[in-house]
Protein backbone atom coordinates (compact mmCIF):
# COMPACT_ATOMS: atom_id res chain seq x y z
CA UNK A 1 0.00 0.00 0.00
CA UNK A 2 2.68 2.44 0.93
CA UNK A 3 4.63 1.28 -2.06
CA UNK A 4 1.66 1.86 -4.27
CA UNK A 5 1.23 5.40 -3.10
CA UNK A 6 4.93 6.00 -3.19
CA UNK A 7 4.90 5.00 -6.79
CA UNK A 8 1.91 7.12 -7.59
CA UNK A 9 3.46 10.09 -5.89
CA UNK A 10 6.63 9.56 -7.85
CA UNK A 11 4.66 9.64 -11.08
CA UNK A 12 2.82 12.72 -10.01
CA UNK A 13 6.01 14.37 -8.91
CA UNK A 14 7.67 13.65 -12.21
CA UNK A 15 4.65 14.81 -14.12
CA UNK A 16 4.67 18.00 -12.21
CA UNK A 17 8.34 18.48 -12.88
CA UNK A 18 7.88 17.86 -16.58
CA UNK A 19 4.89 20.16 -16.73
CA UNK A 20 6.73 22.94 -14.98
CA UNK A 21 9.74 22.54 -17.20
CA UNK A 22 7.73 22.54 -20.41
CA UNK A 23 5.86 25.45 -19.07
CA UNK A 24 8.98 27.38 -18.36
CA UNK A 25 10.65 26.46 -21.60
CA UNK A 26 8.09 27.21 -24.18
CA UNK A 27 7.75 30.97 -23.95
CA UNK A 28 11.46 31.33 -23.76
CA UNK A 29 12.22 29.40 -26.87
CA UNK A 30 9.33 30.55 -28.97
CA UNK A 31 9.32 33.48 -31.37
CA UNK A 32 7.97 36.72 -30.05
CA UNK A 33 9.00 38.85 -27.12
CA UNK A 34 6.25 39.34 -24.59
CA UNK A 35 7.65 42.66 -23.45
CA UNK A 36 7.71 43.99 -26.98
CA UNK A 37 4.16 43.06 -27.63
CA UNK A 38 3.11 44.53 -24.33
CA UNK A 39 4.69 47.81 -25.30
CA UNK A 40 3.30 47.56 -28.73
CA UNK A 41 -0.13 47.50 -27.17
CA UNK A 42 0.85 50.43 -25.02
CA UNK A 43 1.06 52.33 -28.24
CA UNK A 44 3.35 54.95 -26.86
CA UNK A 45 4.25 57.49 -29.43
CA UNK A 46 7.92 58.21 -29.03
CA UNK A 47 10.44 55.49 -29.78
CA UNK A 48 12.74 56.81 -27.10
CA UNK A 49 10.09 56.35 -24.44
CA UNK A 50 9.48 52.85 -25.65
CA UNK A 51 13.13 51.95 -25.30
CA UNK A 52 13.24 53.02 -21.70
CA UNK A 53 10.11 51.13 -20.87
CA UNK A 54 11.38 48.06 -22.63
CA UNK A 55 14.52 47.95 -20.57
CA UNK A 56 12.46 48.49 -17.47
CA UNK A 57 10.03 45.64 -18.09
CA UNK A 58 12.62 43.23 -19.37
CA UNK A 59 14.48 43.59 -16.11
CA UNK A 60 11.26 43.43 -14.18
CA UNK A 61 10.27 40.07 -15.71
CA UNK A 62 13.81 38.82 -15.33
CA UNK A 63 14.33 38.15 -19.03
CA UNK A 64 17.81 39.62 -18.86
CA UNK A 65 19.20 36.86 -16.65
CA UNK A 66 20.97 33.75 -17.93
CA UNK A 67 18.54 30.96 -18.74
CA UNK A 68 19.55 28.62 -15.95
CA UNK A 69 19.09 31.42 -13.48
CA UNK A 70 15.67 32.13 -14.91
CA UNK A 71 14.84 28.48 -14.53
CA UNK A 72 15.93 28.34 -10.91
CA UNK A 73 14.15 31.57 -10.15
CA UNK A 74 11.07 30.16 -11.76
CA UNK A 75 11.10 27.20 -9.43
CA UNK A 76 11.92 29.36 -6.46
CA UNK A 77 9.05 31.67 -7.19
CA UNK A 78 6.77 28.76 -7.85
CA UNK A 79 7.50 27.18 -4.52
CA UNK A 80 6.70 30.47 -2.88
CA UNK A 81 3.39 30.40 -4.70
CA UNK A 82 4.48 33.29 -6.86
CA UNK A 83 3.42 32.81 -10.45
CA UNK A 84 4.61 36.17 -11.63
CA UNK A 85 2.68 39.17 -12.81
CA UNK A 86 0.11 39.16 -15.52
CA UNK A 87 1.03 41.19 -18.55
CA UNK A 88 -2.50 41.49 -19.73
CA UNK A 89 -3.82 42.53 -16.35
CA UNK A 90 -0.73 44.38 -15.32
CA UNK A 91 0.17 44.63 -12.46
CA UNK A 92 -2.11 42.00 -10.96
CA UNK A 93 -0.22 38.94 -9.71
CA UNK A 94 -1.09 35.90 -11.78
CA UNK A 95 -2.09 34.00 -8.68
CA UNK A 96 -4.70 36.64 -7.86
CA UNK A 97 -6.14 36.48 -11.33
CA UNK A 98 -6.36 32.73 -11.11
CA UNK A 99 -7.81 32.63 -7.64
CA UNK A 100 -10.62 34.86 -8.76
CA UNK A 101 -11.46 32.61 -11.68
CA UNK A 102 -11.09 29.30 -9.92
CA UNK A 103 -14.36 29.26 -7.96
CA UNK A 104 -16.30 29.59 -11.18
CA UNK A 105 -14.47 26.76 -12.88
CA UNK A 106 -14.72 24.50 -9.87
CA UNK A 107 -18.34 25.43 -9.49
CA UNK A 108 -18.91 24.18 -13.00
CA UNK A 109 -16.56 21.24 -12.99
CA UNK A 110 -17.21 19.55 -9.70
CA UNK A 111 -20.97 19.31 -9.98
CA UNK A 112 -20.91 18.40 -13.63
CA UNK A 113 -18.24 15.74 -13.21
CA UNK A 114 -19.76 14.17 -10.12
CA UNK A 115 -23.35 14.37 -11.24
CA UNK A 116 -22.66 13.16 -14.74
CA UNK A 117 -20.62 10.34 -13.34
CA UNK A 118 -23.28 9.21 -10.92
CA UNK A 119 -26.18 9.73 -13.23
CA UNK A 120 -24.37 8.32 -16.25
CA UNK A 121 -23.34 5.18 -14.44
CA UNK A 122 -26.79 4.64 -13.00
CA UNK A 123 -28.37 5.16 -16.32
CA UNK A 124 -25.89 3.00 -18.19
CA UNK A 125 -26.42 0.15 -15.77
CA UNK A 126 -30.11 0.63 -16.11
CA UNK A 127 -30.01 0.63 -19.90
CA UNK A 128 -27.77 -2.41 -20.07
CA UNK A 129 -30.48 -4.69 -18.84
CA UNK A 130 -33.37 -3.43 -20.87
CA UNK A 131 -33.18 -4.20 -24.49
CA UNK A 132 -35.53 -1.49 -25.59
CA UNK A 133 -33.69 1.11 -23.55
CA UNK A 134 -30.44 -0.19 -24.85
CA UNK A 135 -31.63 0.18 -28.39
CA UNK A 136 -33.46 3.44 -28.15
CA UNK A 137 -31.85 5.62 -25.55
CA UNK A 138 -28.28 4.54 -25.91
CA UNK A 139 -27.84 6.01 -29.38
CA UNK A 140 -28.61 9.30 -27.70
CA UNK A 141 -25.69 8.58 -25.41
CA UNK A 142 -23.45 8.08 -28.40
CA UNK A 143 -24.58 11.30 -29.96
CA UNK A 144 -23.97 13.10 -26.70
CA UNK A 145 -20.42 11.85 -26.25
CA UNK A 146 -19.65 12.57 -29.84
CA UNK A 147 -20.83 16.14 -29.52
CA UNK A 148 -18.08 18.68 -29.33
CA UNK A 149 -18.54 20.49 -26.04
CA UNK A 150 -18.68 23.86 -27.65
CA UNK A 151 -21.27 22.89 -30.15
CA UNK A 152 -23.66 21.59 -27.57
CA UNK A 153 -22.95 24.75 -25.63
CA UNK A 154 -23.68 26.86 -28.67
CA UNK A 155 -26.89 24.99 -29.35
CA UNK A 156 -28.07 25.40 -25.79
CA UNK A 157 -27.08 29.04 -25.77
CA UNK A 158 -28.90 29.60 -29.00
CA UNK A 159 -32.03 27.62 -28.26
CA UNK A 160 -32.55 28.33 -24.58
CA UNK A 161 -30.71 31.59 -24.35
CA UNK A 162 -31.21 33.58 -27.48
CA UNK A 163 -34.31 32.14 -29.07
CA UNK A 164 -36.30 31.16 -26.02
CA UNK A 165 -34.69 33.76 -23.78
CA UNK A 166 -35.04 31.51 -20.76
CA UNK A 167 -31.43 31.60 -19.68
CA UNK A 168 -28.75 34.23 -19.82
CA UNK A 169 -25.80 33.35 -22.01
CA UNK A 170 -22.95 35.39 -20.63
CA UNK A 171 -21.23 36.10 -17.39
CA UNK A 172 -21.51 34.51 -14.00
CA UNK A 173 -24.24 36.68 -12.57
CA UNK A 174 -26.41 39.53 -13.68
CA UNK A 175 -24.61 42.71 -14.58
CA UNK A 176 -27.09 44.57 -12.45
CA UNK A 177 -25.99 42.77 -9.32
CA UNK A 178 -23.13 42.79 -6.96
CA UNK A 179 -22.01 39.77 -5.03
CA UNK A 180 -24.06 39.50 -1.87
CA UNK A 181 -25.86 36.88 0.07
CA UNK A 182 -29.26 37.71 -1.27
CA UNK A 183 -31.71 35.49 -3.08
CA UNK A 184 -31.53 37.68 -6.09
CA UNK A 185 -27.83 37.22 -6.39
CA UNK A 186 -27.78 33.50 -5.72
CA UNK A 187 -30.63 33.04 -8.15
CA UNK A 188 -28.76 34.97 -10.75
CA UNK A 189 -25.65 32.89 -10.13
CA UNK A 190 -27.63 29.70 -10.57
CA UNK A 191 -29.30 30.96 -13.67
CA UNK A 192 -26.00 31.83 -15.30
CA UNK A 193 -24.45 28.61 -14.14
CA UNK A 194 -27.12 26.35 -15.50
CA UNK A 195 -26.44 26.31 -19.23
CA UNK A 196 -22.68 25.79 -19.05
CA UNK A 197 -23.27 23.16 -16.44
CA UNK A 198 -25.91 21.48 -18.55
CA UNK A 199 -23.74 21.29 -21.63
CA UNK A 200 -20.84 19.82 -19.67
CA UNK A 201 -23.12 17.46 -17.87
CA UNK A 202 -24.84 16.17 -20.96
CA UNK A 203 -21.69 15.38 -22.92
CA UNK A 204 -20.04 13.65 -19.99
CA UNK A 205 -23.25 11.90 -19.07
CA UNK A 206 -23.43 10.22 -22.45
CA UNK A 207 -19.87 8.99 -22.10
CA UNK A 208 -20.37 7.50 -18.68
CA UNK A 209 -23.65 5.91 -19.59
CA UNK A 210 -22.08 4.13 -22.53
CA UNK A 211 -19.02 3.14 -20.59
CA UNK A 212 -21.12 1.73 -17.80
CA UNK A 213 -23.37 -0.10 -20.17
CA UNK A 214 -20.40 -1.84 -21.75
CA UNK A 215 -18.80 -2.56 -18.40
CA UNK A 216 -21.98 -4.09 -17.08
CA UNK A 217 -22.36 -6.27 -20.11
CA UNK A 218 -18.85 -7.59 -19.64
CA UNK A 219 -19.41 -7.93 -15.95
CA UNK A 220 -22.58 -9.93 -16.46
CA UNK A 221 -20.47 -12.45 -18.31
CA UNK A 222 -18.10 -12.91 -15.41
CA UNK A 223 -17.75 -16.24 -13.73
CA UNK A 224 -19.13 -15.12 -10.43
CA UNK A 225 -22.28 -13.98 -12.17
CA UNK A 226 -22.66 -17.35 -13.83
CA UNK A 227 -22.19 -19.01 -10.50
CA UNK A 228 -24.76 -16.84 -8.78
CA UNK A 229 -27.19 -17.46 -11.59
CA UNK A 230 -26.59 -21.16 -11.37
CA UNK A 231 -27.50 -20.94 -7.73
CA UNK A 232 -30.68 -19.20 -8.67
CA UNK A 233 -29.77 -15.82 -7.26
CA UNK A 234 -32.36 -13.29 -8.38
CA UNK A 235 -31.40 -10.77 -11.04
CA UNK A 236 -31.58 -8.03 -8.46
CA UNK A 237 -28.64 -9.34 -6.50
CA UNK A 238 -26.65 -10.13 -9.60
CA UNK A 239 -27.13 -6.66 -10.93
CA UNK A 240 -26.19 -5.15 -7.66
CA UNK A 241 -22.93 -7.03 -7.66
CA UNK A 242 -22.28 -6.35 -11.29
CA UNK A 243 -22.92 -2.68 -10.81
CA UNK A 244 -20.60 -2.47 -7.89
CA UNK A 245 -17.83 -4.21 -9.73
CA UNK A 246 -18.39 -2.38 -12.96
CA UNK A 247 -18.21 0.94 -11.25
CA UNK A 248 -14.64 0.33 -10.20
CA UNK A 249 -13.16 0.65 -13.67
CA UNK A 250 -15.33 3.69 -14.06
CA UNK A 251 -13.52 5.22 -11.11
CA UNK A 252 -10.27 4.74 -12.96
CA UNK A 253 -12.03 6.02 -16.04
CA UNK A 254 -12.84 9.15 -14.14
CA UNK A 255 -9.18 9.71 -13.45
CA UNK A 256 -8.35 9.18 -17.11
CA UNK A 257 -11.13 11.44 -18.29
CA UNK A 258 -10.33 14.24 -15.96
CA UNK A 259 -8.07 16.01 -18.42
CA UNK A 260 -10.71 15.80 -21.11
CA UNK A 261 -13.40 17.06 -18.80
CA UNK A 262 -11.30 19.98 -17.70
CA UNK A 263 -10.64 20.80 -21.32
CA UNK A 264 -14.34 20.57 -22.02
CA UNK A 265 -15.04 22.97 -19.21
CA UNK A 266 -12.55 25.41 -20.66
CA UNK A 267 -14.21 25.38 -24.03
CA UNK A 268 -17.66 25.64 -22.56
CA UNK A 269 -16.66 28.59 -20.45
CA UNK A 270 -15.48 30.29 -23.57
CA UNK A 271 -18.83 29.85 -25.26
CA UNK A 272 -20.71 31.20 -22.30
CA UNK A 273 -18.16 33.85 -21.37
CA UNK A 274 -18.16 32.28 -17.98
CA UNK A 275 -15.39 33.98 -16.05
CA UNK A 276 -13.46 30.84 -15.10
CA UNK A 277 -10.09 29.46 -16.06
CA UNK A 278 -11.10 28.60 -19.62
CA UNK A 279 -12.08 32.11 -20.26
CA UNK A 280 -8.82 33.18 -18.70
CA UNK A 281 -6.80 30.87 -20.90
CA UNK A 282 -8.43 32.16 -24.01
CA UNK A 283 -7.75 35.72 -22.97
CA UNK A 284 -4.21 34.90 -22.04
CA UNK A 285 -3.72 33.34 -25.45
CA UNK A 286 -5.29 36.21 -27.28
CA UNK A 287 -3.34 38.71 -25.28
CA UNK A 288 -0.14 36.74 -25.39
CA UNK A 289 0.08 36.87 -21.64
CA UNK A 290 2.68 34.19 -21.08
CA UNK A 291 2.75 34.50 -17.36
CA UNK A 292 -0.93 34.13 -17.00
CA UNK A 293 -0.92 31.23 -19.44
CA UNK A 294 1.85 29.54 -17.52
CA UNK A 295 0.08 30.09 -14.25
CA UNK A 296 -3.23 28.81 -15.46
CA UNK A 297 -1.62 25.81 -17.02
CA UNK A 298 0.25 24.97 -13.87
CA UNK A 299 -2.83 25.44 -11.84
CA UNK A 300 -4.80 23.08 -13.99
CA UNK A 301 -2.04 20.51 -13.98
CA UNK A 302 -1.80 20.65 -10.23
CA UNK A 303 -5.56 20.45 -9.97
CA UNK A 304 -5.70 17.44 -12.23
CA UNK A 305 -2.89 15.77 -10.35
CA UNK A 306 -4.55 16.31 -7.02
CA UNK A 307 -7.85 15.07 -8.35
CA UNK A 308 -6.12 12.03 -9.76
CA UNK A 309 -4.57 11.34 -6.44
CA UNK A 310 -7.90 11.67 -4.68
CA UNK A 311 -9.36 9.22 -7.13
CA UNK A 312 -6.47 6.85 -6.53
CA UNK A 313 -7.11 6.97 -2.82
CA UNK A 314 -10.82 6.52 -3.34
CA UNK A 315 -10.16 3.57 -5.58
CA UNK A 316 -8.07 1.84 -2.99
CA UNK A 317 -10.79 2.40 -0.46
CA UNK A 318 -13.52 0.89 -2.58
CA UNK A 319 -11.74 -2.01 -4.24
CA UNK A 320 -10.50 -4.69 -1.84
CA UNK A 321 -8.51 -6.27 -4.64
CA UNK A 322 -6.07 -3.41 -4.84
CA UNK A 323 -5.69 -3.29 -1.09
CA UNK A 324 -4.66 -6.86 -0.55
CA UNK A 325 -2.97 -7.16 -3.89
CA UNK A 326 -0.70 -4.37 -2.89
CA UNK A 327 -0.12 -5.67 0.55
CA UNK A 328 1.18 -8.94 -0.77
CA UNK A 329 2.72 -8.76 -4.15
CA UNK A 330 2.83 -5.44 -5.86
Amino acid at each position, binding site marked *: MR*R*YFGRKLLIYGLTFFVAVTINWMIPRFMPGDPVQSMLSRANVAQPAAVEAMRAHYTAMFGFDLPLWQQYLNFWGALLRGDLGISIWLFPTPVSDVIIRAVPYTLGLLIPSILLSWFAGNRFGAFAARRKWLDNTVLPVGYVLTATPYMWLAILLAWALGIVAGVFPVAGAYGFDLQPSLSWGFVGSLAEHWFLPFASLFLVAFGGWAIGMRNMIIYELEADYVNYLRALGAPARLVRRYAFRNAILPQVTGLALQLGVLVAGALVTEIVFSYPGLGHLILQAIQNQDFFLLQGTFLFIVIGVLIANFVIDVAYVLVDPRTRTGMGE*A*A
Partner: protein
Amino acid sequence: MLKLDGVSKVYRVGAFGGRELKAVSDVSFEVGEGEVVSLIGESGSGKSTLGRMILRLASVSGGTITLDGRDITSIKDRKEYYRQVQGVFQDPFSCYNPVFRADRVFAMIKEQYFPRAGADEWRKRVEGALESVRLDPGNVLGKYPHQLSGGQLQRMLIARAVLLDIRLLVADEIISMLDASTRIDVLNLLADLRARGLGILFVTHDLSLGNYVSDRTVVLRHGKIVEMGRTDLVFGSPAHPYTRSLLASVPRLHAKWTDAEMTDAVEDVPCAYHEAPQESRTRPGLAEIDSDHYVACADKEKA
Protein backbone atom coordinates in the same frame (compact mmCIF):
# COMPACT_ATOMS: atom_id res chain seq x y z
CA MET B 1 24.59 -34.35 -23.51
CA LEU B 2 22.61 -31.75 -21.58
CA LYS B 3 23.84 -31.12 -18.13
CA LEU B 4 22.37 -28.90 -15.45
CA ASP B 5 24.72 -27.91 -12.72
CA GLY B 6 23.37 -26.15 -9.65
CA VAL B 7 20.85 -24.28 -11.67
CA SER B 8 18.64 -21.76 -9.90
CA LYS B 9 16.15 -19.21 -10.99
CA VAL B 10 15.07 -16.14 -9.12
CA TYR B 11 12.13 -14.15 -10.37
CA ARG B 12 11.90 -10.55 -9.44
CA VAL B 13 8.31 -9.74 -8.78
CA GLY B 14 6.46 -6.70 -7.61
CA ALA B 15 7.07 -3.12 -8.42
CA PHE B 16 10.63 -2.42 -9.53
CA GLY B 17 11.42 -6.07 -8.86
CA GLY B 18 11.11 -5.44 -5.19
CA ARG B 19 10.59 -9.02 -4.12
CA GLU B 20 12.41 -12.19 -5.00
CA LEU B 21 10.84 -15.49 -5.73
CA LYS B 22 13.05 -18.49 -5.89
CA ALA B 23 11.38 -20.72 -8.44
CA VAL B 24 14.26 -23.17 -8.91
CA SER B 25 17.16 -23.69 -6.62
CA ASP B 26 20.31 -25.66 -7.07
CA VAL B 27 19.08 -28.26 -9.51
CA SER B 28 21.55 -30.61 -11.13
CA PHE B 29 20.82 -33.48 -13.46
CA GLU B 30 21.65 -34.72 -16.91
CA VAL B 31 19.83 -35.82 -20.00
CA GLY B 32 21.74 -38.20 -22.22
CA GLU B 33 21.26 -39.05 -25.86
CA GLY B 34 18.29 -41.30 -26.41
CA GLU B 35 17.20 -40.89 -22.87
CA VAL B 36 13.84 -39.76 -21.55
CA VAL B 37 14.04 -37.95 -18.26
CA SER B 38 10.75 -37.04 -16.68
CA LEU B 39 10.43 -34.08 -14.44
CA ILE B 40 7.64 -34.51 -11.96
CA GLY B 41 6.22 -32.24 -9.35
CA GLU B 42 3.17 -30.39 -8.17
CA SER B 43 2.00 -27.18 -9.67
CA GLY B 44 4.42 -24.34 -9.14
CA SER B 45 7.33 -26.58 -8.34
CA GLY B 46 9.43 -25.02 -11.07
CA LYS B 47 9.16 -27.58 -13.80
CA SER B 48 8.25 -25.22 -16.57
CA THR B 49 10.80 -22.74 -15.37
CA LEU B 50 13.51 -25.31 -15.73
CA GLY B 51 12.27 -26.17 -19.21
CA ARG B 52 12.22 -22.56 -20.21
CA MET B 53 15.73 -22.02 -18.97
CA ILE B 54 16.94 -24.92 -21.00
CA LEU B 55 15.14 -23.47 -23.99
CA ARG B 56 16.72 -20.12 -23.26
CA LEU B 57 13.32 -18.52 -22.95
CA ALA B 58 14.24 -17.53 -19.43
CA SER B 59 17.60 -16.41 -18.16
CA VAL B 60 19.53 -18.53 -15.70
CA SER B 61 20.06 -16.88 -12.33
CA GLY B 62 22.65 -19.27 -10.99
CA GLY B 63 24.56 -22.38 -12.02
CA THR B 64 25.21 -23.50 -15.54
CA ILE B 65 23.47 -25.43 -18.24
CA THR B 66 25.79 -27.06 -20.69
CA LEU B 67 25.20 -28.83 -23.95
CA ASP B 68 28.04 -31.17 -24.82
CA GLY B 69 30.13 -29.28 -22.32
CA ARG B 70 29.40 -25.89 -23.82
CA ASP B 71 27.62 -23.38 -21.66
CA ILE B 72 24.44 -22.69 -23.56
CA THR B 73 24.49 -18.99 -22.74
CA SER B 74 27.83 -18.77 -24.53
CA ILE B 75 26.26 -19.91 -27.76
CA LYS B 76 25.71 -16.48 -29.21
CA ASP B 77 23.72 -17.60 -32.18
CA ARG B 78 20.41 -18.69 -30.79
CA LYS B 79 19.47 -20.31 -34.06
CA GLU B 80 22.46 -22.53 -33.79
CA TYR B 81 21.23 -23.67 -30.40
CA TYR B 82 17.63 -24.09 -31.41
CA ARG B 83 18.71 -26.29 -34.26
CA GLN B 84 19.67 -28.80 -31.61
CA VAL B 85 17.26 -28.13 -28.79
CA GLN B 86 13.58 -27.58 -29.25
CA GLY B 87 10.49 -27.48 -27.10
CA VAL B 88 6.85 -28.45 -27.21
CA PHE B 89 4.41 -26.95 -24.78
CA GLN B 90 1.41 -27.94 -22.82
CA ASP B 91 -1.39 -26.27 -24.69
CA PRO B 92 -1.29 -27.16 -28.35
CA PHE B 93 -4.01 -24.65 -29.11
CA SER B 94 -2.10 -21.71 -27.76
CA CYS B 95 1.05 -22.69 -29.60
CA TYR B 96 -0.54 -21.69 -32.84
CA ASN B 97 -1.19 -18.16 -33.78
CA PRO B 98 -4.93 -18.33 -34.23
CA VAL B 99 -4.99 -15.86 -37.09
CA PHE B 100 -2.71 -17.88 -39.32
CA ARG B 101 -2.83 -21.34 -40.80
CA ALA B 102 -1.37 -24.04 -38.65
CA ASP B 103 1.41 -24.92 -41.07
CA ARG B 104 2.89 -21.53 -40.49
CA VAL B 105 5.00 -23.16 -37.79
CA PHE B 106 6.78 -25.00 -40.59
CA ALA B 107 7.06 -21.91 -42.73
CA MET B 108 8.74 -20.15 -39.87
CA ILE B 109 11.36 -22.88 -39.67
CA LYS B 110 12.00 -22.62 -43.38
CA GLU B 111 12.24 -18.88 -43.25
CA GLN B 112 14.76 -18.93 -40.45
CA TYR B 113 16.79 -22.04 -41.14
CA PHE B 114 16.36 -23.09 -44.72
CA PRO B 115 15.71 -19.93 -46.64
CA ARG B 116 17.27 -21.39 -49.72
CA ALA B 117 15.36 -24.64 -49.78
CA GLY B 118 13.16 -25.05 -52.83
CA ALA B 119 9.43 -25.16 -52.37
CA ASP B 120 9.09 -28.72 -53.57
CA GLU B 121 12.01 -29.96 -51.62
CA TRP B 122 10.68 -28.29 -48.53
CA ARG B 123 7.25 -29.69 -49.03
CA LYS B 124 8.71 -33.16 -49.20
CA ARG B 125 10.61 -32.61 -45.99
CA VAL B 126 7.51 -31.39 -44.21
CA GLU B 127 5.49 -34.30 -45.44
CA GLY B 128 8.21 -36.62 -44.31
CA ALA B 129 8.23 -35.11 -40.88
CA LEU B 130 4.47 -35.28 -40.65
CA GLU B 131 4.48 -38.90 -41.64
CA SER B 132 7.07 -39.60 -39.01
CA VAL B 133 4.58 -38.39 -36.40
CA ARG B 134 1.88 -40.41 -38.17
CA LEU B 135 -0.11 -37.53 -39.56
CA ASP B 136 -1.63 -37.49 -42.99
CA PRO B 137 -0.16 -34.36 -44.58
CA GLY B 138 -3.19 -33.87 -46.77
CA ASN B 139 -5.34 -33.81 -43.69
CA VAL B 140 -3.54 -31.18 -41.74
CA LEU B 141 -1.76 -28.86 -44.15
CA GLY B 142 -3.50 -25.64 -45.06
CA LYS B 143 -5.88 -25.69 -42.15
CA TYR B 144 -6.43 -23.24 -39.37
CA PRO B 145 -5.58 -24.34 -35.85
CA HIS B 146 -9.19 -24.41 -34.77
CA GLN B 147 -9.93 -26.90 -37.52
CA LEU B 148 -7.51 -29.41 -36.08
CA SER B 149 -7.67 -31.50 -32.98
CA GLY B 150 -5.35 -31.09 -30.05
CA GLY B 151 -3.59 -34.33 -30.83
CA GLN B 152 -3.01 -33.32 -34.40
CA LEU B 153 -1.71 -29.96 -33.38
CA GLN B 154 0.55 -31.45 -30.77
CA ARG B 155 1.96 -33.90 -33.24
CA MET B 156 2.55 -31.15 -35.75
CA LEU B 157 4.60 -29.36 -33.17
CA ILE B 158 6.69 -32.43 -32.67
CA ALA B 159 7.03 -32.73 -36.42
CA ARG B 160 8.22 -29.18 -36.50
CA ALA B 161 10.94 -30.01 -34.02
CA VAL B 162 11.88 -33.07 -35.97
CA LEU B 163 12.40 -30.99 -39.10
CA LEU B 164 15.46 -29.55 -37.47
CA ASP B 165 17.26 -32.80 -36.63
CA ILE B 166 17.22 -31.86 -33.00
CA ARG B 167 18.99 -33.74 -30.32
CA LEU B 168 17.03 -32.69 -27.29
CA LEU B 169 13.32 -32.08 -26.94
CA VAL B 170 11.83 -30.34 -23.95
CA ALA B 171 8.25 -31.56 -23.70
CA ASP B 172 6.43 -29.47 -21.14
CA GLU B 173 3.21 -31.22 -20.12
CA ILE B 174 2.54 -31.97 -23.72
CA ILE B 175 -0.23 -34.41 -23.07
CA SER B 176 -2.17 -33.11 -20.15
CA MET B 177 -4.56 -31.22 -22.37
CA LEU B 178 -5.19 -34.18 -24.60
CA ASP B 179 -7.94 -36.71 -24.46
CA ALA B 180 -7.14 -40.05 -22.99
CA SER B 181 -7.61 -41.64 -26.39
CA THR B 182 -5.09 -39.44 -28.12
CA ARG B 183 -2.58 -38.87 -25.40
CA ILE B 184 -1.31 -42.35 -25.57
CA ASP B 185 -0.53 -41.87 -29.24
CA VAL B 186 1.60 -38.88 -28.47
CA LEU B 187 3.37 -40.75 -25.73
CA ASN B 188 4.10 -43.62 -28.03
CA LEU B 189 5.46 -41.14 -30.52
CA LEU B 190 7.88 -39.78 -27.98
CA ALA B 191 9.07 -43.25 -27.25
CA ASP B 192 9.70 -43.79 -30.94
CA LEU B 193 11.70 -40.63 -31.15
CA ARG B 194 13.78 -41.69 -28.26
CA ALA B 195 14.56 -44.84 -30.10
CA ARG B 196 16.05 -42.64 -32.80
CA GLY B 197 18.52 -41.20 -30.33
CA LEU B 198 16.63 -38.12 -29.23
CA GLY B 199 17.05 -36.95 -25.67
CA ILE B 200 13.77 -35.91 -24.12
CA LEU B 201 13.01 -33.91 -21.01
CA PHE B 202 9.48 -34.91 -20.23
CA VAL B 203 7.78 -32.52 -17.86
CA THR B 204 4.57 -33.72 -16.26
CA HIS B 205 2.60 -33.82 -13.10
CA ASP B 206 0.98 -37.10 -14.05
CA LEU B 207 3.11 -39.81 -12.53
CA SER B 208 1.68 -42.66 -14.48
CA LEU B 209 2.59 -40.97 -17.73
CA GLY B 210 6.07 -40.22 -16.52
CA ASN B 211 6.44 -43.75 -15.53
CA TYR B 212 5.21 -44.98 -18.89
CA VAL B 213 7.90 -43.40 -21.03
CA SER B 214 10.84 -42.32 -19.00
CA ASP B 215 14.18 -43.85 -18.20
CA ARG B 216 14.96 -41.58 -15.36
CA THR B 217 12.80 -39.43 -13.15
CA VAL B 218 13.45 -36.21 -11.30
CA VAL B 219 10.95 -35.22 -8.63
CA LEU B 220 10.82 -31.51 -7.87
CA ARG B 221 9.26 -29.75 -4.98
CA HIS B 222 9.40 -26.01 -4.34
CA GLY B 223 12.12 -25.74 -6.93
CA LYS B 224 14.36 -28.32 -5.32
CA ILE B 225 15.04 -31.89 -6.26
CA VAL B 226 13.64 -34.21 -3.63
CA GLU B 227 14.36 -37.46 -5.36
CA MET B 228 15.73 -38.62 -8.64
CA GLY B 229 17.04 -41.65 -10.33
CA ARG B 230 16.07 -44.55 -12.50
CA THR B 231 12.35 -44.53 -13.05
CA ASP B 232 11.81 -48.06 -11.85
CA LEU B 233 13.64 -47.27 -8.62
CA VAL B 234 11.89 -43.99 -7.95
CA PHE B 235 8.48 -45.44 -8.64
CA GLY B 236 9.23 -48.87 -7.32
CA SER B 237 10.77 -47.86 -4.03
CA PRO B 238 10.17 -44.20 -3.44
CA ALA B 239 12.52 -43.00 -0.74
CA HIS B 240 11.20 -39.52 -0.01
CA PRO B 241 7.91 -39.02 1.83
CA TYR B 242 6.84 -36.49 -0.74
CA THR B 243 7.34 -38.92 -3.57
CA ARG B 244 5.42 -41.47 -1.64
CA SER B 245 2.51 -39.17 -1.00
CA LEU B 246 2.46 -38.22 -4.65
CA LEU B 247 2.37 -41.82 -5.66
CA ALA B 248 -0.34 -42.53 -3.20
CA SER B 249 -2.48 -39.80 -4.64
CA VAL B 250 -2.36 -41.21 -8.14
CA PRO B 251 -5.74 -42.63 -8.98
CA ARG B 252 -5.40 -46.17 -10.23
CA LEU B 253 -7.85 -47.95 -12.36
CA HIS B 254 -7.99 -51.17 -10.55
CA ALA B 255 -7.41 -50.14 -6.99
CA LYS B 256 -9.42 -47.62 -5.11
CA TRP B 257 -7.74 -45.38 -2.63
CA THR B 258 -7.63 -47.16 0.67
CA ASP B 259 -8.92 -45.50 3.76
CA ALA B 260 -5.39 -45.12 5.01
CA GLU B 261 -4.40 -43.30 1.90
CA MET B 262 -7.40 -41.10 2.18
CA THR B 263 -6.01 -39.67 5.36
CA ASP B 264 -2.57 -38.36 4.59
CA ALA B 265 -0.56 -40.47 6.96
CA VAL B 266 2.41 -41.08 4.74
CA GLU B 267 4.33 -38.05 5.95
CA ASP B 268 5.29 -39.81 9.15
CA VAL B 269 7.63 -42.21 7.45
CA PRO B 270 11.22 -40.88 7.79
CA CYS B 271 13.19 -40.17 4.65
CA ALA B 272 15.92 -42.44 3.37
CA TYR B 273 18.52 -39.68 3.37
CA HIS B 274 19.91 -40.36 6.79
CA GLU B 275 20.20 -44.03 6.21
CA ALA B 276 22.44 -43.50 3.23
CA PRO B 277 26.16 -43.71 3.87
CA GLN B 278 28.09 -40.45 4.10
CA GLU B 279 30.27 -41.16 1.08
CA SER B 280 27.29 -41.54 -1.15
CA ARG B 281 26.38 -37.90 -0.73
CA THR B 282 28.05 -37.00 -4.00
CA ARG B 283 25.67 -34.30 -4.92
CA PRO B 284 25.03 -31.49 -2.50
CA GLY B 285 21.89 -32.14 -0.53
CA LEU B 286 21.27 -35.52 -2.12
CA ALA B 287 22.23 -38.94 -0.96
CA GLU B 288 22.67 -41.85 -3.30
CA ILE B 289 20.73 -44.65 -1.76
CA ASP B 290 20.97 -47.02 -4.65
CA SER B 291 22.83 -46.95 -7.89
CA ASP B 292 21.37 -43.97 -9.70
CA HIS B 293 18.78 -43.23 -7.07
CA TYR B 294 19.16 -40.07 -5.08
CA VAL B 295 17.07 -38.58 -2.35
CA ALA B 296 17.00 -35.32 -0.39
CA CYS B 297 16.35 -34.94 3.27
CA ALA B 298 12.74 -34.35 4.21
CA ASP B 299 13.56 -32.96 7.63
CA LYS B 300 15.76 -30.26 6.25
CA GLU B 301 12.96 -29.14 4.02
CA LYS B 302 10.66 -28.78 6.95
CA ALA B 303 13.08 -26.55 8.72
